């Protein structure tokens, strides 16, 4: 369990994290979404005790990170996969980490095996591809078999096979009852991986909830198509429906599928396609963060 309470971090003039509060619960993958520069990485650094909060607190299992005696047994983190001395081998990097927390040496071999990099374990990390570095970063995070895991943009630079692997890994870690907190600016990725979502923009909490809850509240549209395109367009126009052309058909925003069916019947237009389109998480996210930008830009917001 990660608890962030009224967390604020100011760097000279900019406020990177602004009165942020949320809990990350065990047993599910929680996605941490926000555009670049929205404060995701800063929040993660604050949780890990790397940065000092201006006010508020971030705790893991009820304790501040810097009070942890064997932090790697409680929290595993991957912030930047390339943040390893390029001249050191993967195995030595993990050995040094294991030694610092008195973890059993066999854990090094276990996590190398688990992440599929045993065969390159004795190569210098500087020669690694981004995908291999990500795997090493995940191996390091898993080293102490921790109950809480933080990953900052873990799918960056991974090939499709690697993305699939990482998605399955996160879900199985969550099923084991661990807290899995994953940041990303890729909404489509989070829609597939995460069950819970926390969205931030400009350092503020925008919304949080399950993926279903977030997309359910969003506007929905209907894709409609007829063999007689101009007749359909006339029918939509006479009823003052909000729509836009898309491909050979139209996307209708202001009516549901049933009402469009009725409208077409009344106008004598035979429909060939009538498909409700639920907004993707990505669209929801764009709407939400666009609002936050407008809100933050108003003079009253920063008084």
């Amino acid at each position, binding site marked *: 369990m990660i608890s962030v309470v009224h967390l604020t971090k100011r760097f000279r003039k900019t406020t990177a994290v602004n009165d942020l509060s949320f809990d990350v619960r065990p047993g599910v993958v929680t996605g941490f979404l926000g555009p670049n520069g929205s404060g995701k990485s800063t929040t993660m650094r604050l949780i890990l005790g*790397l940065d000092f909060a201006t006010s508020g607190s971030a705790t893991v299992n009820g304790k501040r990170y810097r009070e*942890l005696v064997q932090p790697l047994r409680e929290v595993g*983190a991957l912030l930047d996969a390339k943040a390893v001395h390029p001249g050191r081998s993967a195995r030595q990097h993990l050995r*040094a980490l294991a*030694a610092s927390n008195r973890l*059993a040496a066999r854990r090094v071999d276990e996590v190398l095996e688990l992440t599929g990099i045993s065969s390159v374990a004795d190569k210098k990390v500087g020669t690694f591809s981004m995908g291999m570095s990500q795997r090493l970063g995940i191996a390091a995070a898993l080293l102490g078999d921790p109950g809480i895991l933080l990953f900052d943009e873990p799918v960056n630079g991974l090939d499709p096979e690697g993305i699939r692997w990482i998605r399955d890994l996160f879900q199985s870690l969550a099923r084991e009852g661990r807290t899995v907190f994953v940041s990303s600016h890729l909404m489509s990725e989070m829609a597939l991986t995460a069950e819970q979502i926390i969205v931030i923009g400009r350092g503020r909490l925008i919304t949080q909830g399950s993926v279903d809850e977030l997309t359910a509240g969003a506007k929905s549209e209907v894709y409609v198509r007829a063999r007689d395109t101009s007749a359909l367009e006339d029918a939509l126009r006479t009823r003052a429906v909000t729509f836009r052309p898309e491909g050979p058909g139209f996307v209708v925003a202001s009516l549901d599928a049933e009402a469009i069916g009725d409208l077409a019947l009344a106008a004598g237009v035979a429909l060939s396609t009538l498909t409700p389109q639920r907004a993707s998480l990505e669209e929801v996210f764009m709407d939400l963060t666009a609002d936050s930008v407008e809100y933050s830009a108003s003079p009253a917001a920063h008084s």
Partner: protein
Amino acid sequence: MSTKPTIASVVRSEWIKFRSVRSSVTGVVVTLLLTIGLGALITLAVRSHWSQTDAVRRATFDPVSTSLSGTLFAQFAVGVIGVLFITAEYSSGSIRTSLAAVPQRLHLVAAKALVVGLVVVVVAEVACFVTFLVGQSIFSGVVPTASLSNGAVLRSVIFAGLYLTLLSLVGMGLGLILRQSAASISVFTSLLLILPILTLLLPQSWQNAINRFEPSQLGQSMMSPTPTANTFGAWSAFLILALYTAGVVGVGAGMLERRDH
């Protein structure tokens, strides 16, 4: 496993880090080569010119510090060892991983200082004793020699190794303060080379008062069996340099403790 990590586990971790990168191994080899190799070259040169050396020079000749001359070059190698052990963590970004594993930041500094200090003290003492013995055997029969059975001579050789050890820790402290390899190495080099040149611009009486406090002059004092005019005795010089070292490492540790990473 319920064994709690201690400072010893952090030292073990830092030792793995130290020996698993080429720059530290290179640094150690270069320290040995510079101390012993240049020591041998310099003593050979002294020996071959001894017949043309005038009486005044012969009278003030010190076979001990002359045979330890290689340390004047090796001091830069040990400084770089100390600097890189810190700045490599910043340039690669692995400092975050290190601090996440050891959030007690002062433990991390203590462990790093212990590893650098212990490695360099062993390497430097070996280098200094070897270069001393090589130098005396080169002098033997032509130039006056010194013997380790003399207490002051033994102290000078031991202190030469301690001088290098303290300088490696100064390098580490500068790395903690500046976090960049190039900047740290420049400052380190300036302290040893530029500072003495700057004081040459001062009036002679000021120079006499200030020179003795300079790190390089403290090193000379530490390696001389008998003190020369306007310098500290070996023990005082050692204590002053140790104080400088503690100051630089202390400031660096304080900055690490307070900084965002």
